[in-house]
Structure formats: structure tokens, C-alpha cells
């Protein structure tokens, strides 16, 4: 068993670089929200240029080591199907296979973590009523609407466990 363990360890740490040497690029450039590092070229043999090359080569290797995209997929699958959590902090796992955008405080908004204060609601109400009055005086119709988020649209499949209370939907009236 010791030999098996040692062989497995050596295989796991050696295969990515071996794949690179065999011409296999582990990156999936179309799946990332950035430009992947390019293979650097060495400019001179001075210490600063060697240092720069070393940093750039590490950046390239981090992006391109063999089987990288496969390992990332496996990691995502295990987190999702085995652990039952979203593979990304930017996406919240909902019910029935639905996923929701979770960045920009989207889930916080849905869960009403920080609702508007009564003063802020009063300010909004005053501003809207004032705008409405100004436009009506000029015979212009004024319609105010708030674009619903995906979590609101697909209410039944929302992240109920994150909800602390129902979202208020009352119309702003004078």
C-alpha cells in the first residue's frame, strides 16, 4: 500500500507539467472573465529580468497547467452534487435546479438584510410625488416602476431558506 500511495502522489503532482510538455493546454480561455497569462519570453540574463520572467512564468503556469479546467469542473461538480453548495460565491443555489445571481448584494436585497429606513422610504415617496406633480402640471403621464429581479420573477423557486420575511409590494400612493 505504501508503494501505491507513493505512486499515486507522484502521478498526481507530475501529470500536469507532463501534460504541458506533451503539448496539452489545461486552460479553457473562453470560460474565464479575464485574459489568461501568455507564455513569457526571457529578456536578458540580469537578476531583474530573471525575476520578472519567473513571476510571469508562474502566472502562465497557474493558468495553463495540465488538466486545470477538468479539475475545476470536478471541483464544481463535487461542491454542487455532493456537498450541495454553489460552486461559486457569486451564484446562489435555489430550488429545483435554479441558480440565482448573488453578487452586488442581490441575495441580501432579496432577504431584506438591510431594508430602506422609514426616512429613506419617505424621501423616495416625496421625490416621486413631487416628480409626478410636476409632470402632471404639464399634462405628461408619469409611470414609476421597479424592474423585478430574477429572484422576484421566479418567486416559487426562490431561495426560501434565505428569506427572513415576505417582500413588501405595496404601491406608492398619495
Amino acid at each position, binding site marked *: *500500500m505504501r508503494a501505491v500511495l507513493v505512486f499515486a502522489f507522484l502521478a498526481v503532482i507530475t501529470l500536469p507539467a507532463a501534460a504541458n510538455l506533451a503539448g496539452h493546454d489545461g486552460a479553457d480561455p473562453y470560460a474565464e472573465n479575464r485574459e489568461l497569462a501568455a507564455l513569457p519570453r526571457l529578456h536578458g540574463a540580469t537578476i531583474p529580468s530573471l525575476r520578472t520572467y519567473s513571476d510571469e512564468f508562474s502566472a502562465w503556469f497557474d493558468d495553463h497547467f495540465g488538466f486545470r479546467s477538468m479539475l*475545476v469542473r470536478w471541483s464544481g461538480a463535487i461542491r454542487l452534487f455532493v456537498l450541495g453548495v454553489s460552486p461559486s460565491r457569486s451564484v446562489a443555489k435555489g430550488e429545483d435546479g435554479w441558480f440565482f445571481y448573488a453578487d452586488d448584494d442581490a441575495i441580501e436585497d432579496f432577504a431584506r438584510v438591510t431594508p430602506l429606513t422609514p426616512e429613506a422610504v419617505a424621501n423616495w415617496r416625496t421625490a416621486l410625488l413631487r416628480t409626478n406633480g410636476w409632470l402632471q402640471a404639464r399634462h405628461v403621464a408619469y409611470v414609476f416602476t421597479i424592474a423585478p429581479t430574477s429572484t422576484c420573477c421566479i418567486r416559487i423557486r426562490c431561495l426560501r431558506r434565505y428569506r427572513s420575511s415576505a417582500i413588501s409590494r405595496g404601491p406608492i400612493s398619495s
Partner: protein
Amino acid sequence: MLFTEPTFLFLFLPILLALYFSTFRRVHSSYGNWLLLIFSIIFYAKGGGSFTRLILGSIVFNYFVAIAVDRARGSTPSPRPAARRCLAFAVAANLVLLGIFKYTNFFADHVNTLFLLLRVRPVVVPRVLLPIGISFFTFHAISYVVDVYRRDATAQKSPVHAALYLLLFPQLIAGPIIRYRTIADQLARRVVTLDDFAYGVRRFVVGLAKKVLIASAFLKAMAGLGRAAPTPYTVRWYLTSEVWLALAAGAVGSTPWVPALAARFAVARRPAVARSASLVATATLVALLVASIMQVAAGTYNPFIYFQF
């Protein structure tokens, strides 16, 4: 360079192991030492940058000062005053180096706070960058000189061996501080067997899994909870099943009965039980290794549509 970086795991470590064992010998001495020293310097230079020269200068200083302590100490039971002075100088010089890099800004900030209260013009002190691992390195060097002073070991005559003791990359940036007398003999000559290597692999895999699977999950959860308001929502959002699993694994793994149970199974009287236990342990370690590698890969990923699957 960190042990959890792809560059270390998939490039630095395999190349070092391939070169180290390319002699196909069980006994390792001069060639292995040179190789380990060169790779340790590369390892430090990768993260330490220009501080590498400082560390190398400190190694040269401690190499010569240890020889001076050894000579001044002589072979008498009680140390001579010259040896004591030499030791005091070595310890002071190492601590001054540590103090300059680690505490200059700390003291300057506090003194300036006091000066502000007293309406005195603050002292302008440039920001001093902290060399990686300076604390471990300093105390390692001090322990070496102290071991020589106490005659627990003789001063290393080989600069390569002395440098390797101080610079060996597995303990360079995060310790532990290994007493020189513990490994003095192994620096000159050591035998590496399959059992030793397998033991090292076990320690490495368990450590890697603790870092990238357990500690990282906690770090994310604690950092998120620290930033967010403590509501039931934030607790549910950050304390996922992954974190609870990491908590359970950490709690179970750190209890003393786990290694005791494993040892008991390993020496079970029934060979079938011992074989099964060994098989389960190996399968678990391989699974931990693969899971850790997947986590390392996922850490380098910046998803296009905020989704990694």
C-alpha cells in the same frame, strides 16, 4: 512561493524529486545537499525577492560566528568568557536584524502617536518591508549558535551544510524551528527508504488537505461573517454544509483516538483486518490528495459567468 500554489505542487516539487532521486541511491549526501540548497534559494527568492541577499548574508554571518563560538568555547566543561561574549554578540546581531525589519514601523507608529499627544513633531520613518520568514529564520540561526555554545553539536565546517540547515525550504517560511543537533548527522548523510518517503507523503497530503480543504473553507466563512451583519441570513449563507463538513473533519482529525485507532488496526493480529485498514487509509489519502488538487485548481479560476460548473 507557497506550498499550495500550482507552481510549487506541479513544477517545483516534481522537478526537485526527479533530480534528487535521479542517482537511484538510498544514501544521500553531497549531491542532494547542493540540490536542496539551490532549490531552497530559488524557493525563497521567488517570494522574498531582494531579501534573498539579506538572508544569504545572515547565513554567512552565522556560519562564521558559530565557528568562532566553537573555538572560543574549547573543550572545557564550563564555557570561557570569550565564548559567552561571542554568543551574546551573535544573539544580539540576529535580534537586531529581526528588530529592524519587524518592529521599526511598529515602534515608530507608537512613538509618533505619543508625540502627537505631546504636540511634538512626529519622526519620519520610511516603511520597512518585512522579509518572508524572518522570524523563523532568526530563531533558527540563534538555536544553531546556542547548540554549538552548549556543545550539543559542533559548529558546521561545511558552508553548504550550514546554509542548508538554515535555508531548507520545507521549514523556511513557516517553521517549525528544528534544533541543529536533531538533524546535524542527517545533513552529512541520510538514508531515504520507501517507508520514509511514504511517511512524508502522508504528512504532506494531510497537511495540504488541512490547508486547502478545511482552513480555506473556514477562512471564507469567517471573512464573510466578519464583513456581513450577523443576521440569520448571513449565517445560513456563509456557514454552508461545506463549512460544517470541514468543522467535523477538523474536529475528528484532531482527536487523539484517530491515530491511536489507525495504529491499532495497522498492527491488528488478523492480517485481513490490517490489510483492510491499510487499504482504507491509502484510499482516503489518495481521495484527499485529489480533492486538494481540485481545490487548488479551483482557486486559480475566475469564472466568466460567475459560475464554475
